[in-house]
């Protein structure tokens, strides 16, 4: 039992942060909600599937469950959560260097804004590829779609983001001139 818990702790330490990041990006930067869902996913794994699931599969299982939970959250009327997240974000302790903190926040906001412009399936596929370095086959396993669909979704997401990025750069250049 102790060794099982140790194994689980190792898995948790390895993947909890990345699962939180994946969910945060998927949910448009709602960090507290993302952390709650990540915790809930690990809790489900520990109570239901841990021990019966091969260790190699656990990671995919976690991402699949977490993504489904995120989709459920999208479906809910979530104004309340948004307000709560903003309050939490405002109360969060800031870094010592305000300039650096500002830059980080700006960059994160930009990435989130661009990701939010994508459809959910494209966003999830791209995040799993760019952040988690999963192969197309593994992404298909997590999202329960074919490998070819993953390939197309990732390409479309990249093309869309590139177009958006270029447009943004042009607008910024025009305003500077």
């Amino acid at each position, binding site marked *: 039992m102790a060794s099982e818990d140790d194994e689980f702790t190792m898995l948790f330490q390895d993947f*909890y942060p990345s699962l939180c990041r994946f969910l945060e990006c998927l949910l448009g930067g709602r960090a507290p909600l993302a952390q709650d869902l990540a915790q809930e996913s690990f809790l489900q794994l520990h109570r239901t599937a841990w021990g019966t699931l091969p260790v190699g599969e656990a990671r995919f299982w976690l991402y699949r469950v977490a993504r489904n939970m995120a989709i459920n959250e999208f479906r809910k009327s979530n104004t309340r959560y948004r307000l709560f997240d903003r309050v939490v974000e405002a109360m969060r302790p800031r870094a010592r260097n305000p300039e650096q903190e500002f830059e980080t926040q700006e960059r994160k906001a930009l990435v989130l804004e661009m990701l939010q412009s994508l459809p959910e399936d494209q966003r999830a596929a791209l995040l799993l590829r760019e952040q988690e370095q999963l192969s197309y086959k593994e992404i298909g396993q997590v999202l329960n779609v074919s490998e070819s669909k993953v390939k197309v979704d990732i390409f479309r997401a990249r093309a869309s983001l590139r177009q958006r990025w270029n447009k943004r750069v042009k607008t910024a250049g025009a305003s500077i001139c």
Partner: protein
Amino acid sequence: MSCGFTEKISSLIDGELSQTEAREVERHLLSCSECEQVRADFLSLRSQIAGYESSLEPTVQNRALKKILAPRPHRTGLQWAFGTPAIAFATLLIAGAIIGLLFYQSKRAPQSQTTALVQQTPAPVPSATVEKEKQPRPEASPETSSETPPATPNKNEKGTNSPRLEPATPVKRRLVREPKPGEQFASVPERVRSADAETMTAMHFENSETLLLAFKNVRLDESGSAAEVSHERKRAKQLVFQNMMLRREADASGDVQISSLLENLEPILIDIANLPDQPDAEAIRVIRERVERKNIVALLRVNSTALARALD
């Protein structure tokens, strides 16, 4: 993005192309500046997305792990655990059904008690009634009684399986049955015929019995033809229609015994009603034999008596 290689560039930076394909795309990239720019942009996007830093703090992570690994609160004894609204709804539904059933039973109880009273009315034991009633045959002439094979009580006592004993069985109807100790009549109320129908049936049995006795006593001429059966024919015609009506009523009310008796009686009444004006002795004899064989007269008497007593 007009170049046909842009989609392959996406797969190339993900390492999802075969070696041949990858080499081909790489060669193309050397000559196509537009596609080279696409690759640079895709890689730039990758670095931005991959460089996204989560707002997670170590304290939150540790707290989450403690929560997950904490032992579940142990439930002791019986507890209410309506896990889902569906279980609560199902419980309410069952409770509603039980209350409804109890209410229905309480409403039906007085009616069932009345039924039980009717059913428990003491009545003579049918077999004894058959024996007593069969002994006096007041209207039977010496000739006919000698012809007729007598339904002696001795035969009945022996308990032989002769057809004459069979009619005694239907007489053991629910009207005369004694309730067994602890038996609840009210719980499953049987279908009971109306008092009017039972009165009519009793009267019909009496009339039919009288007719059959009269028919049995019809004298035959020396020529072998019956002197006069017009009265019996007319009476039989009247009784046939009544018989049909009562039989349907008995069928509808589920009284199988009365229904089967009426069913046996009906062809005999029809035969009598269809006799010619001057019937020959053979036709009369055939009908008489059928009456005797089916022991109709005794059965009619027993049933009419039982019905009459039940109605009293």
